[in-house]
């Protein structure tokens, strides 16, 4: 797995709520700590990346988080302006203002326009080598296929024009497994795993992008080994619990609550393990599966991102 950061472009996706932004932010931080000039881009500009890095707003033009780490949010309108200025060399950029909102509507209606402006900007950063690695906090399962497939689909609808001419170099970047990879984030729960397995299949069937790895986030630690679990079960017996409470001069109910909490932890963990097994089966043996343990401490902000980055670093 040491090759993950040898790629130039990583799309982190998965079901909403599994910690996509955390995984993307942590991968970006880790890569930058390993010496890569890294750009992390949030495709849905909801501000999650700014919260993760605690760095203030992350505009389209980028914000330096550390010396080698830059964060930005996608803005298809800004992407269009940049594109017109740098590539299409359209002279009317100054006057595009009132047109931009109108264009926004065309982009909404015309298939793939918004998507191509998103993917195009990311591929552009890769091609221009402004960064060694671009990590994308991509859209959730529902939309990411459309985004990644846009350069293929656009050829069917846009028969001429500059947009179409641009798709071939983008596809070259997206298709090369040594350059571009998708990272599916999931948690050991029913729907996230189901969607992750489904997404893995659709990525290869419908998009040019190859699956690089799957990250299982918020995996609970195993509390007990086999022998220990037997002892634990014995502790739960009322007579035993009573004796322990008496010996330590504890309230029985309070001790019961502590033991029940451990039992809940064991149950959640066991439940998750079954889903992880299903995940492993679903994505196949050849796809690397990385585990990020559940963080009991602070669950957000730079401290959490640093922790996840360290844990991912151990897995890689």
């Amino acid at each position, binding site marked *: 797995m040491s090759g993950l950061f040898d790629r130039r472009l990583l799309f982190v996706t998965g079901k*909403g*709520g599994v910690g996509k932004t955390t995984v993307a932010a942590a991968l970006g931080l880790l890569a930058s700590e390993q010496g890569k000039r890294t750009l992390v881009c949030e495709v*849905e500009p*909801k501000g*999650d990346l700014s*919260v993760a890095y605690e760095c203030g707003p992350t505009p389209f033009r980028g914000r330096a988080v550390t010396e080698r780490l830059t964060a930005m949010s996608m803005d298809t309108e800004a992407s269009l302006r940049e594109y*017109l200025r740098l590539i*299409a060399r*359209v002279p*009317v950029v100054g006057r*595009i203002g*009132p*047109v931009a909102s*109108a*264009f926004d*509507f*065309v982009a*909404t*209606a*015309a*298939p793939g*326009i918004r998507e191509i402006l998103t993917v195009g900007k990311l591929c552009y950063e890769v091609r221009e080598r402004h960064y060694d690695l671009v990590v994308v906090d991509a859209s*959730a399962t*529902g*939309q990411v296929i*459309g985004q990644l497939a846009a350069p293929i689909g656009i050829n*069917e609808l*846009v*028969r*001429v*024009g*500059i*947009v*179409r001419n641009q798709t071939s170099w983008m596809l070259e970047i997206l298709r090369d497994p040594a350059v571009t990879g998708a990272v599916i984030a999931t948690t050991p729960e*029913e729907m996230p795993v*189901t969607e992750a397995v489904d997404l893995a299949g659709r990525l290869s069937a419908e998009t040019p992008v190859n699956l690089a790895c799957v990250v299982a986030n918020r995996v609970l630690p195993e509390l*007990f080994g086999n*022998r220990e679990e037997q*002892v634990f079960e014995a*502790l739960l017996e009322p007579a*035993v619990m009573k004796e*322990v409470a008496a*010996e*330590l001069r504890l*309230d029985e*109910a*309070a*001790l019961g*609550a*502590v033991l*029940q*909490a*451990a039992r*809940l932890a064991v149950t*959640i963990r*066991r*439940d998750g393990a079954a889903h992880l097994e299903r995940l492993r089966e679903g994505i196949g043996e050849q796809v690397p599966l990385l585990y990020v343990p559940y963080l*009991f*401490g602070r669950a*957000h902000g730079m401290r959490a991102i640093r922790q996840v980055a360290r844990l991912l670093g151990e897995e890689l």
Partner: protein
Amino acid sequence: MTGRQSELEQLVAAKEVIVACGPGGVGKTTTAAAIAAGVAAHLGGKVLVITVDPARRLADALGIGGLGNRATRVPDEAFLAAGVRPKGELHAAMLDMSESWDALVRRHAPDEPTAGQILSNPLYQNISRRFSQGHDYIAMERLFELHEEGEYDLLVVDTPPSRNALDLLDAPARMQEFFSSRLLRWVTVPYRSRLVNMASRPFYQVADRVLGSQLLQDLADFFILLQTMRDGFVARAAAVDRLLRDARTTFLLVTTLEAVPGREAAEMKAALAERRLHLGLLVCNKVLPESLTDPGAARAADRLAEASAELGPGLAARLASGGDEVAADVVSRVVDEVAHSFANFRLVANREAELLRELSAAHDVTVTIPYQPGHVTDLASLLAMGARVFGDEAEEHVAARVSGSRRAGGRSGGRPRRAGAP
């Protein structure tokens, strides 16, 4: 009857539409279905739950796999098998996006050939299948249609996962905006007059170059077709918007008490208030048991951690019954682990409690549903979850009959709680 049960009964009695909203991955669909099942079972009436993209097991539990938009009744036998004699009827339907769009076009197109032209247009196909804001609109539109038909006493609608929770609320307004937008006029004017109009000229210069005139022409053709449906669409979207604001409609906000979904839920709540939409119920899902935040339990955990070494030998002897040796250090390790695990989960539970306080204002009806291992696999588990929303009594009633239902630690019932109450 618990306090919350009567509050919920009053809410359901006064409302005809419940719109479930909230961040992704928090169990929104399941909660919507559980509430509908709970109302049908315990309060009565003809209840329809409309789900978007349910997990297969939930769809199976409701018996709606592969039915498209068609509503189907969950048979009384299914309730009886789950140990409940339903007072009302539970119906369920899935929301099939493209089927709903097609129905909308057929309704508003001036004639059959125009409808056919629109339906076969590739741009239409893109919008109806991939345009996520369109999905938001369709969910609301379908709700309106069902409400207008008046066949059900209560509609509970799940909403599609959106990029932004607010999209849902603004979807009808956006639809109206779309049809009155300047762009639509620009694109649909005859080619020759395009370059004459000073306002639209730069748009065409750019668009021609970037997209090519062919796509522009396709767009123009499509928009001209769309224009034929304009009046119907705009009037309809306005009516849908009115229904969302109607006194008979209430919103159900579902979230977990994790940091990110919690923040999104808070934003959603503010957005509802800003738009003067009625928040009837806040459901916090997968909440850790209250006993984790109990100071007495925390003291017990600390004491266990201190005493784990000394407890080892004695407990080992006690547990080594029937000639089966138990090593003292294994026992000590287990006791240690139990104490450590409690401390970990206590931290999370305290964080959840704090977030709950921040999220629920004094007048909100707030329900917490404890973390349940396992999933909704049948109507019985759905009813058990619904009972947790409605209060403890009903739950005992159901839970007693759910074979093999596992209880999480601590109190198993959701707690009726008005925020601010101790």
